[in-house]
């Protein structure tokens, strides 16, 4: 039993990977070890697929509402979408003090998309994998945000935007100055020269930590939550609901909170990138 539970957990935590086999042919990996051998140039078909499908659902719904949006009395779906838009808009206005038309749509995309990816956690853990198993697909991880590739892919995109806007707003000199002249500075140029390496080290560390912590926080929370669902699924069938229901209810809070944190931190980081001293 111990062996099969380990297998069950491992099986649930293995992505469906498409890449180049060691013999040179391309195809889906049959095991976790095989997937590892494929190296970097492989793709997690399940995470990628679900993430794109969810984004298409989100954008499809929002786009259809946007097409029909009236300034009259809004209907049910438009009401919901407007609540989201208004919520994002006010959050962005609160924490972002520059003027950049990109930030609010960016925040909306992040919030809704991450929320939907997290919400896949609430689908019973065996539901979709069992369905795909019928079609001969043996690995299926349905929660994209439990894949660090997904969360880090987004957080590094945010990182790229931080760098881009820092340079755009402050100029290369300003950005370099920000990295090298803080937190220690001294009017004496000799002492300042001594401080510069220390400052650079601290500030670059600070800068690089941002995307990593941003991506890993989301990944860690979702991974842990998914793990607990998997563990609950190992228990006898008749007792599962006593744990899975409370955990799922609690998890509704977690998935919303994590999506919100990811969005707010993105906005705050970009706001900091726009601040010119």
């Amino acid at each position, binding site marked *: 039993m111990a062996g099969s539970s380990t297998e069950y957990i491992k099986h649930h*935590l293995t*992505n469906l*990977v498409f*890449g180049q086999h060691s013999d040179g042919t391309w195809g889906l990996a049959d095991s976790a070890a095989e*997937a*590892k051998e*494929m*190296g*970097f*140039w*492989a*793709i*997690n078909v399940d*995470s*990628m697929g679900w*993430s*794109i499908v969810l*984004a298409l659902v989100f*954008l499809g719904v*929002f*786009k259809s*509402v*946007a*097409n029909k*949006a*009236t*300034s*009259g009395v*809004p209907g049910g779906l438009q009401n919901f*979408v*407007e609540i989201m*838009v*208004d919520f994002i*808009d006010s959050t962005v206005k609160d924490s972002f003090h520059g003027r950049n*038309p*990109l930030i*609010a*749509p*960016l925040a*909306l*995309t992040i919030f809704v*998309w991450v929320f939907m990816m997290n919400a896949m956690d609430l689908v019973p853990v065996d539901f979709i994998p069992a369905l795909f198993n019928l079609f001969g697909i043996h690995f299926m991880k349905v929660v994209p945000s439990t*894949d*660090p*590739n*997904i969360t*880090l*892919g*987004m957080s*590094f*995109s945010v990182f790229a935007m931080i760098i881009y806007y820092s340079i755009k707003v402050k100029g290369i000199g300003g950005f370099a100055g920000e990295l090298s002249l803080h937190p220690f500075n001294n009017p004496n140029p000799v002492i300042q020269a001594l401080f510069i390496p220390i400052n650079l080290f601290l500030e670059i560390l600070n800068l690089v930590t941002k995307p990593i912590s941003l991506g890993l926080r989301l990944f860690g929370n979702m991974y842990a939550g998914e793990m607990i669902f998997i563990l609950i699924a190992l228990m006898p069938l008749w007792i599962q609901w006593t744990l899975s229901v409370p955990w799922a209810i609690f998890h509704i809070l977690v998935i919303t909170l994590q999506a919100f944190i990811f969005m707010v931190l993105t906005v705050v980081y970009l706001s900091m990138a726009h601040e010119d001293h």
Partner: protein
Amino acid sequence: MNINATIIGQAISFAIFVFFCLKFVWPPLIAAMNERKEKIAAGLQDADTAEKDLALAKEKAAQTLREAKQQAAELVEQANKRAAQLIDEAKDQARSEGERLKVAAQGEIEQEVNRAKESLRAQVAVLAVAGAEKILNTSVDQSAHSEMLEKLAAEL
């Protein structure tokens, strides 16, 4: 759990979806919402104006009512005055008419009295003579005593 090309794929799709949201989703929604905001603001302002107009109209109506009441009161007072005046006039007229009638009646009565006196005077002489004739049993010369009898009649 391996880091692989998925990270690049996710970054690319992220960029595409954000771009799509920026171009096609966000602007119409926010435009509709802003437009509604303006509409509501305008509506509220209209309501404010209407309220002020209403208050003004109410005040005007009250003013008009007050004026009308005052006018009515004046009219009633005038009418009362006029009525009193008419009554007084009528009384005066009646009084003077009565006076006149009384005077006329008195005159008539006096005339009647005078006339009765005259006729009595005319007859008393005859009666006196007849009486005296009977008393004296003689005929009295009318012409001889007429002067004395006239004097007597005049004394009546």
